[in-house]
């Protein structure tokens, strides 16, 4: 696995050599995509990743960005690892790509993924999202301070719902636990939709999620937004304080991007990067990000690879500090 970049270079050179000697064969090889591109969403339908996928699909369809359609396959399970591990097995198959969230990096750092970052080709970072904590009406919590006090008085009494057992929500809960020195009772659910059902029914006291998953209920008064975990306040949730303002330096950023399996031909990778660049520049994309309180941020290919590597390094540090590694 370690020498796969060298191998890729070698293959590219070989392909280049072939293109001189046998132009027709190379031209045939360069035809991409030759069939629909399958976008794997490693989470249940209806959650943040699923909707991201559907918007990408819509942008590609509406603005005719690709000669072949994009199809979406949902492969949820184990905080996304089921889907990503599956993707890694499709080595060299550029017709299969997947959405990636922060959980992608968590999987590697916590060594829960059976595969390595080298088994993937980073395609593009598309969006940066933040996280929000909201309380149910039944819980009676109105501010972050009240949650902290309740947990101090009775450790583990506050039930926190989030998506996945090792993704960004679980780790945010752990980060809060260690920064504020309280014990939270984190309960993982399979999808954002299930977290919503649990908090609306009052089965958990607070929920963690991306702003777009929870803000609708905050707006209709069913939930109370307690804090966001970004550097500054989130557009669309101007009244909600950041955790820094509450007095604790807990910041989580989660990028949403696209990854492909390792072993792609150069022209295939380029096609996908350019396709995603066009999606990120589309009007539908800007509209989607604005509506869902996210920021459009595009990084293509190697730049996204560097972003992911930085994210892993940062996560390793955070988790080591918390004693979770």
């Amino acid at each position, binding site marked *: 696995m370690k020498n796969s970049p060298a191998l890729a270079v070698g293959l590219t050179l070989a392909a280049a050599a072939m293109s001189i000697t046998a132009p027709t064969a190379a031209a045939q090889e360069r035809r991409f995509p030759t069939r629909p591109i399958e976008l794997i969403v490693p989470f249940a339908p209806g959650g943040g990743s699923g909707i991201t996928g559907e918007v990408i699909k819509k942008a590609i369809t509406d603005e005719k960005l690709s000669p072949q359609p994009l199809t979406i396959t949902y492969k949820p399970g184990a905080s996304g690892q089921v889907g990503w*591990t599956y993707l890694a097995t499709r080595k060299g198959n550029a017709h299969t790509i997947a959405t990636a969230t922060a959980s992608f990096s968590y999987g590697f750092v916590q060594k829960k993924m059976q595969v390595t970052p080298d088994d993937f080709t980073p395609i593009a970072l598309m969006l940066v999202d933040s996280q929000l904590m909201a309380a149910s009406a039944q819980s009676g919590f109105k501010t972050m301070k009240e949650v902290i006090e309740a947990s101090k008085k009775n450790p583990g009494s506050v039930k926190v719902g989030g998506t996945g057992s090792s993704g960004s929500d679980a780790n945010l809960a752990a980060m809060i636990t260690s920064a504020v020195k309280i014990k939270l009772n984190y309960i993982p659910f399979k999808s954002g*939709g299930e977290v919503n059902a649990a908090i*609306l029914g009052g089965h958990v006291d607070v929920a963690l999620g991306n702003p777009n998953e929870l803000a609708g*209920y905050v707006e209709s008064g069913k939930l109370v937004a307690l804090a966001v975990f970004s550097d500054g306040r989130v557009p669309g949730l101007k009244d909600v304080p950041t955790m820094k303002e509450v007095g604790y330096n807990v910041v989580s950023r989660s990028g949403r991007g696209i990854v492909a399996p390792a072993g792609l031909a150069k022209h295939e990778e380029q096609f996908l990067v350019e396709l995603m660049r066009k999606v990120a520049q589309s009007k539908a994309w800007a509209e989607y990000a604005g509506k869902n309180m996210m920021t459009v941020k595009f990084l293509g290919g190697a730049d996204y690879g560097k972003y992911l590597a930085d994210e892993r390094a940062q996560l390793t540090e955070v988790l080591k500090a918390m004693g979770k590694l």
Partner: protein
Amino acid sequence: MDFVSNLSMGFSIAFTPINLVVVTVGVVVGTLIGALPGIGPVAGLSILIPLAFGMDPTSAMILMSGVYYGCMYGGTITSVLMNVPGESSSIMTCLDGNAMARNGRAGPALTIAAVGSFIAGTFSVVMLTLLAPPIAEYALKFGPPEYFALMLLGLSAISGLTGESRAKGYAMGFIGLAIATIGLDPIDGTQRFTYGNLELMDGIGFLPIAVGMFGLGAVLGMIEAPVEIQIMKTTLREMIITKKDLKDSAMPIVRGSLIGFVTGVLPGAGATISTFLAYAAEKQLSKTPELFGTGMIEGVAGPEAANNASTGGAMIPLLTLGIPGSGTTAVMLGVLTLFNLQPGPLLFSKNPDFVWGLIASMYIGNVMLLVLNIAFVPAFVAVLRVPYRVLAPLIAIFCLVGVYSVNYSVLDLWLMVGFGVVGYVAVKMSYPLAPLVLGLVLGGYMEVSLRQSLKMSQADLSIFFTRPIAAAIMAVVIAIVLWPVLNRFVFKRGMKGLQT
């Protein structure tokens, strides 16, 4: 009451030519997708989504929900004719539906399924029309402990009540649960029983096993008989439903509608579990429970009513709370969001034309499905006139393609063939198949809700007995499990109590 005016506005929207075309396309596609094993409603919808985006949101939603409830009708067809359950919600229809077909009564089975589906589907839309918001609030009362209790109820009802021997039923149920633990642990991602195999990390799907045991098992059962199967030839008279059939099915349809609607409202549990509960209820209430599995029309009518009633129920949390209860409604939610419609309590006041147009279209769609399904009964039944020498391999290949279309996995096909043998032998030895498949379908959900509950209570088991809804369901579960023991020791009926 302004819902009359709302509904009439809804009908004025649903009756526009474009929406009539759309609902027709939706229910026809849904019926086809439901009938094909493998291609489920989610896959079917994702094929139609590009088409939906070209429409206005109301038409798009009419199309998608047409596919959704059309699927429930379609699932019946292959279950009755070939013993191949297209979706997990049609497993119970296989038991008596296919037995009826083997008795030459495929016509009445399909007809009663269509009638029951129509009544139940319409009932659930009426309830959706009248009671959506309060029912949504009730659904939210179900948290992890209630779900766990409900899954346990479904599993113990089907294991303990439907087979010839309780012990055999429980054994199959436990084996199903065991198969469900293969793959990544749903709570913390530990690999269990995967032996490093990547394909197993995904877990073992329900379809290869259900199609293998039911479909392929039935094929093997069909070809072992040395004579041409004559009974499959159905005369016109046998095809038509009798007055007695209708009378026998009336109450099962009513009960199935209620069970289906009530469980359909609950996110997650939905259609499948309602069919199991409906079947178990019919068998319990029947004067001749020992005849279930040999072609009782009640065993078709109840579950078929239940799975259709669940579709209207499932629309309630989706529309009023924005919570999808199944993969299918989750896709609909994603599409709604793309159309800038925010499901929730405000949807009814902000976008009444959308909501009421959709609801009205569901009335129309159900009528169309009734007409369509009854009209095509003779054509469907004609399939059974194909001689078994051709029909058997044809069904086998049909199972194979259906299973392949889920994951494009050859491993799944081997599993299907392997479980075909298991199913064939199990039927011979009167080990019931349904508990194994139910254990497999519910196992993952059951484990998640069990462990979530115990996290909520910090490992205190009393959480299942102190919350009123959970406690009530658990009481029924305990009654079902302990009944034979009580029967034996308290009523001193001797050894017979252990068996049926």
